[in-house]
């Protein structure tokens, strides 16, 4: 009864201490999102897009500047400290987190450029998402040339959630971040202007399965709380070290929390949502999910498994091995028979998730830094590839069926060449960033004693190279389809997204050293506890 009376004695509560400065990148992004909602409320429709662009892009730039200034604060890493725990233990600010947040902000910036593209006459987003597909209301909205500008605040909320997710130092904050990043994404998936039904189906599937996985995550949190009496990652680690209570609770908790995290990554066997959602969502949103969400989810996974379960490496490693192997092989093999370019990229993204998992398995600083590097360069290449996908169109919208891509190299050699370059990077051909990344993760895994995993990874990437090359052959060595799609001239924003992706892929392929050095510097002291 003492604890109950203690909770009721109001006088003992002291105000918590919040480090606003170190949280400022997050606060800026969330603030920009709230400002975006106000824009929706008070600015006339025709001027909203301009306001949103300034707020969203400005907010992301400001967040990036703040991340750099936080990272450059000497006191943060003084005396070899890995970083600080702020907001009463809810959020960790350390090297890997700042690196991941910086990556997310950069990737989000490029994604917002894609989302904002409307130079092909109209925005890629629906006029009235709530209208029944094919109904009169929908037609009316399309004719009036309007579209949902809520996408900008929604994107910013999602990005804010993504930044909080890998920083969360306790499982409840992490769960809140998971929901904050997921809910806007569910909505965004259903907002495609064309092919409304498939877009709504994607949103529905993502929502249902996402909710399902959230339930697993929460169940796991409950188990871990039952085991250790706390949701804080370091307290769980401490409890695991002293072995205080039933191990069954602990291991079931690890598995269930892991399921929630692996779902967001799209690791096999929790990958089933990915192809459908990637295909149905507006391509700009797919680009956001395939880059930022994956980075964020890996950030969370790395933190949980390195901090909370860091001493239990030998216990979770076999399961993670299995997941990594299945993910690499299934992603690479199933991608071969895909006929839709977005589905193919979805399976490719699954396979790449598997490659990063090999470095996660290593559970070393080298593994961490390799994962960070891989995520950054893979994200940039991915956005570039999806940006190219938005440019290949036929009268019904984007031409995503691969047969339509036949002979693209003859009609638009530059675009096809850039896409081929991205595909070669995915395949891991040297002098692209994909090679440096793949080498870094495999190297870390091999050094961590997972040579069989590396061999399977190399074989899987050989298989994966096959379907990437198949697309290149299709583009360059096949005759164009008679009713083939037209390639629209990229607008300023899409052009910028493609250019950023291609430049990053090339530069980090030839000289990966500066970014690698940054990643390994960020990962040197692992996560803060």
């Amino acid at each position: 009864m003492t604890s109950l009376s203690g909770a009721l004695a109001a006088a003992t509560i002291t105000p918590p201490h919040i480090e606003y400065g170190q949280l400022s990148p997050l606060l800026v992004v969330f603030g920009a999102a709230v400002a975006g909602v106000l824009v929706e409320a008070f600015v006339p429709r025709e001027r909203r897009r301009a306001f949103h662009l300034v707020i969203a892009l400005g907010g992301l730039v400001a967040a990036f500047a703040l991340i750099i200034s936080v990272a450059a604060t000497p006191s943060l890493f003084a005396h070899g400290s890995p970083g600080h725990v702020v907001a009463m233990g809810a959020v960790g600010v350390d090297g890997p987190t700042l690196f991941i947040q910086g990556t997310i902000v950069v990737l989000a910036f490029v994604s917002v450029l894609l989302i904002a593209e409307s130079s092909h006459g109209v925005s890629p987003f629906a006029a009235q998402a709530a209208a029944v597909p094919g109904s009169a209301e929908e037609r009316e909205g399309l004719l009036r040339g309007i579209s949902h500008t809520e996408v900008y605040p929604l994107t910013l909320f999602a990005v804010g959630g993504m930044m909080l997710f890998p920083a969360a130092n306790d499982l409840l904050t992490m769960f809140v971040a998971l929901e904050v990043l997921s809910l806007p994404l569910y909505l965004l998936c259903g907002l495609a202007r064309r092919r409304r039904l498939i877009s709504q189906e994607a949103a529905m599937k993502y929502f249902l399965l996402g909710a399902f996985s959230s339930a697993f995550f929460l169940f796991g949190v409950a188990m871990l709380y039952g085991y250790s009496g706390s949701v804080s990652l370091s307290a769980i680690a401490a409890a695991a070290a002293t072995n205080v209570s039933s191990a069954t609770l602990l291991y079931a908790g690890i598995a269930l929390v892991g399921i929630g995290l692996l779902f967001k990554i799209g690791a096999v066997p929790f990958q089933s949502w990915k192809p459908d959602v990637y295909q149905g969502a507006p391509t700009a949103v797919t680009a956001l999910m395939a880059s930022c969400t994956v980075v964020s989810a890996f950030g969370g996974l790395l933190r949980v498994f390195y901090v909370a379960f860091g001493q239990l490496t030998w216990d979770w490693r076999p399961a993670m091995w299995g997941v990594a192997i299945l993910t690499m092989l299934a992603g690479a093999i199933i991608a071969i028979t895909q006929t839709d370019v977005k589905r193919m990229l979805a399976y490719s993204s699954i396979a790449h998730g598997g490659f990063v998992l090999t470095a996660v398995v290593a559970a070393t600083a080298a593994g961490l830094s390799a994962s960070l590097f891989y995520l950054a360069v893979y994200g940039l290449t991915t956005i570039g590839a999806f940006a190219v996908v938005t440019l290949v169109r036929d009268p019904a919208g984007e031409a995503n069926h691969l047969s339509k891509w036949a002979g693209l190299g003859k009609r638009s050699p530059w675009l096809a060449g850039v896409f081929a370059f991205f595909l070669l990077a995915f395949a891991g051909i040297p002098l692209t960033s994909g090679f440096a990344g793949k080498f870094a993760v495999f190297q870390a895994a091999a050094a961590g004693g997972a040579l069989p995993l590396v061999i399977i990874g190399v074989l899987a990437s050989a298989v994966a190279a096959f379907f990437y090359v198949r697309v290149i052959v299709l583009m360059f060595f096949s005759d164009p389809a008679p009713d083939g799609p037209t390639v629209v001239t990229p607008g300023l924003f899409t052009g910028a997204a493609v250019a950023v992706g291609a430049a990053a892929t090339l530069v980090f392929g030839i000289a990966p050293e500066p970014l690698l050095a940054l990643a390994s510097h960020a990962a040197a002291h692992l996560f803060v506890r």
Partner: protein
Amino acid sequence: MTGTLAGLPMRAASALPTLAAVGVQRTAWLMLVFPLAGALVLLLGGRRTNRFGHVVGVAMPFASFVVAVITFVAMLGYPASQRARDVHMFTWISVGGFHVDAGLLVDQLSISFALLITGVGSLIHLFAVGYMSHDPDRRRFFGYMNLFVAAMLLLVLADNYLLMYAGWEGVGLASYLLIGFWQYKPSAAAAAKKAFVVNRVGVAGFSVAIMLMFATFGTVTYTGVFGQASSAGRGTATALGLLLLLGACAKSAQVPLQSWLLDAMEGPTPVSALIHAATMVTAGVYLIVRSAPIFNLSMTARLAVTVVGAVTLLFGAIIGCAKDDIKKALAGSTMSQIGYMVLAAGLGPAGYVFAIAHLIVHGFFKAGLFLGAGAVKHEMNDEVDMRRFGGLRVVMPITAATFTIGWLAIIGVWPFSGFFTKDPIIAAAFAKGGISGALLGSAAMIGAGITAFYMTRVLLMTFTGHRRWEPDAHPHEVPPVMTSPMIVLAIGAAGAGAFLMLGNRFVDFLSPVTGAPPASRGLITPVSGATLALVVLGAVIAWAMYGRREIPVTAPAARFPVVAARKDLYGDAVNEAVFMRPGQWLTRLSVYFDNRGVDGLVNTLAATVGGSSGRLRRVQTGFVRSYALSMLVGAVLLVGVLLLVRI
């Protein structure tokens, strides 16, 4: 056994000095920069560079050649033990405790290759100016060719396996682009894809080898790996050797990964001459010789190498006998000749030098033969069927003369090049001793006879006899821009062998890197006498079959062995049965499982539970529930695994 064989070269290899390059050698990286700049200008410059593209395309490899010669001359100024120099460029990858510098190793082995690549490469570029003069895409062609030269130089000059791997993939990419250069031909597109896919198999072997090196030695530099190689144990050395052999097999078109090379002849002929005869396909030999300290440790790996070489040299020669397409006949011959090099490399220190020597002279005569074939094809309206040639000696005298010199060189008639480099390989194979030595030596010797047969056949069918031309063919001698490279190559084909091998010149030059072979036993030995007799026999049979008799314009029906050889000895059929079918089956199975398996499971389950499948079908509005079910199954498995690990 291993100890005695390995003793000498290991000392030589681990003594590889890592002296930093000084003076003029510090600019060796210019060799790479010139062709790379050429490729960038030509590929990114667009149509603006059409007018002068070919000039840039030829000038760049030639500039590299000049740099290579300067570097080589500077090297000759050092004593033999200090000739290996490292040119540091920049730090390429640094992850955690792992560090790779982008550096070049200029030593006797790599400079030999660099001279071959840039020298023969420049000549072939020059030839291509004439050969491709009517092609609207000539600029793009030179762009790819320069890209190839840069990548190939990176491959041979790299001072660590990772950088070599980058070059390895680069030449693969250039080869892929050039095989499919005439992309409007479906056969060219298919051939390009085949080359790429087959090479993935090899690359998988190579990259696993690099990972294994890293896991074992913690480094991938040559000095680091070779220095610790002896501490690794024989099992690791064997594994490394076999994995590297897999990579070499794919790149050098050795059995069982040979099938792509014949199809690769779809590319323009200068490509066949440079990439698929003189340089890129010999990268496998380079890889094995460069990795000598690893192969020296493992008898098993070396035995595998010799077997692959011996099988391929016969395999390629037999294919060469049956092909009517002049380029495919020469491609079979390339496979076969590389088989000799691989066989020699597998013999260890006794053969390394001969493998490289044969590689270099082969670069001369095979490039010359291909250019000759290209000249003929150019004048015969792109006809490649030798049954439609004949009597060209009269209208194309220079081409015929250079081709004849190439022919004498490849079949190994004294004093032409092939004699000086092929005979030591055959002799070294016999000198290996035991049954395996006798078998390998006999295979190599019989191969020499078959080589004489099919090369004589090519020569006779093309240049002598009656004119069996298509009615609209009006061949003339090709212009000087095409004949002059052929003449230079013919001079090389005639004299390079004698120059390199007489007085042990090349052996002494290269042995600090590869270890010295046992002293030779004079010029004419019983082995070389017997070989020469077989060569004469083969040539005479060919003359009896093709020189004296009329050659039908359509290929006559043939019985089993000829049919098999015409079909590349069923290489494709084997690939299809062993790799493609199971691969397709696996893919289909996983897709089936992904799409329907889980559903099927649910339906079956439902039916078993008691005829409720009807109700289940009615509530089935999509596939979400089966996705959720698959997640649930996965979750149960994951929880199960984690809890089981505990027990």
